[in-house]
């Protein structure tokens, strides 16, 4: 019987299980950081954590509060310049998995983190690409973590910052994109994969206690489903202990 847990904890655990031992991960702050470090503390001790600030092989001894936190440098295997981290690691196809968040995402995993409304006269100015555009292009696979609602999952995004499986009507192959693009979406309600033919997301797992109608009603298009939608596996007591006691003791993200 699993202990009680928050939705964030479930998402972190689900994301962690997606990472294989020995892989190289481009880590983001927040839930992705917790997921990567959870994996490192459990089934994937040889996971290499790279942060876009240039920290390589980080072993953070506290919760990093930015992607350039000094705890990512102390005890790391290497530190490299921004030039290196983008050219020699990311563009040079050394990154197995990247994580992306989304202010808006469409059915193909095209992500908008640039602007709500018109670019020239924005309703809301969002942060922009940072390293996201290249991660979407070059990482072997991308895991998207987002909170579901109709604003976040509209039929069409206002701006494509980072291309998904089909962008502006062209497939990744048509565009010549070297990386695999988004392969998994984890939201507060369920888990989704991308159809290899259509490039569209489809629901594969639904979180314990969530109704299928909640999932469908917070997505702005006719959502596809797997033939066998399963229940997202619950966190183990050990996973929860690591998250709560070691990774995020002040409960900033969980």
């Amino acid at each position, binding site marked *: 019987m699993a202990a009680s847990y928050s939705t964030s904890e479930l998402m972190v655990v689900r994301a962690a299980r997606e990472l294989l031992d020995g892989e190289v991960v481009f880590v983001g702050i927040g839930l992705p950081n917790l997921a990567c470090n959870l994996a490192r503390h459990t089934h994937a001790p040889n996971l290499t954590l790279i942060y876009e600030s240039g920290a390589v092989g980080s072993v953070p001894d506290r919760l990093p509060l930015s992607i350039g936190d000094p705890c990512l440098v102390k005890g790391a295997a290497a530190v490299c310049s921004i030039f290196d981290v983008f050219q020699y690691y990311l563009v040079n196809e050394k990154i197995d998995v990247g994580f992306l968040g989304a202010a808006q995402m469409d059915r193909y995993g095209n992500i908008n983190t*640039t602007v709500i409304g018109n670019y020239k006269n924005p309703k809301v100015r969002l942060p*922009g690409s940072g390293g996201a555009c290249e991660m979407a292009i070059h990482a072997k696979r991308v895991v998207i973590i987002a909170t579901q609602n109709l604003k976040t999952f509209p039929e069409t995004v206002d701006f494509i910052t*980072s291309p998904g499986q089909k962008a502006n009507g062209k497939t990744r192959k048509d565009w010549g994109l070297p990386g695999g693009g988004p392969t998994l979406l984890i939201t507060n309600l369920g888990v989704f994969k991308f159809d290899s033919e259509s490039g569209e997301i489809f629901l594969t797992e639904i979180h314990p206690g969530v109704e299928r109608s909640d999932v469908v009603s917070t997505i702005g298009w006719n959502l596809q489903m797997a033939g066998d939608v399963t229940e997202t596996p619950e966190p183990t007591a050990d996973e929860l202990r690591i998250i709560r006691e070691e990774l995020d003791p002040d409960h900033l993200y969980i």
Partner: protein
Amino acid sequence: MESKVTTMADAISRFVEDGFTIVIDGFTHLICFAAAHEIIRQRKRNLTLCRMTPDLIYDQMIAAGCASKLIFSWAGNPGAGSLFGLRRAIEGQIPSPLEIEEYSHFGLAARLIAGAANLPFYPVQSYLGSDLPTVNPQIRSVTCPYTERSIATVPALNPDIAIVHAQRADADGNAQVWGITGIQKETAFAAKNVIVVVEELVDSTVIRSDPNRTLIPGMVVDAVVVEPFGCHPSYVQGYYDRDNDFYVAWGDISRDPSSLDRYLDEWIYGVGSRTDYVEKLGPDEVSRLKAELVLSTPVNYGY
């Protein structure tokens, strides 16, 4: 040779002119707020501000009316939310319109690399499928003469002035940096003039005991400013930690224009220098953020 070592007030007044394209560098680390505050105090105007992450530092400069243009690639409060000064300028032209020119991190880094390498452009394997090129006509392309495939390009960026913070330098400006090094080296080589700001001015023998550690050679440095705690609320590896409480608090401070103005009045216009600022912070804050000692293993340069 005339000494390069000078005060921040002198360096800013000599090397930063209205209308200049300026980079105050440091990727999450070594962000020289001391320089930004002095620029605000000297009421520099119509600057083109360039940084990958505008961060709180440019949010303050924009809110203070120093900028007419921003070149950037990620405009958030790292780990802590929005930059409301910047957003008011873009969304509502407050206090004045702000032209923006936007890249991905990689694209903007490549502009500085091209500037440092004296290349007119830099080729970047990027932007395919993204809408960024549709809103930035500076993102163009060339055809590879070997594969015949198209590849995106960005133009060189050569700032009028680069301000880079380092842990230590000698009086010639040979500057050593460890921890996150960002795009500081390329920015220094790309800029027409360079101000290096340091936590510690050290004897040349300290620098020369470890030449591989020197990120920026003195020959490209015009002024050296010694400004301990000069990056607060940012951090300096081995000296002091980021003041994350302030980064979080900035959300509330900057959300309301009048509270942001009060911040500028109290912490920037209201203090004469970084020394005054540190004094105002108080010894408890300084000691709270002070770094513990974790020394590197020395290496042998003998032969």
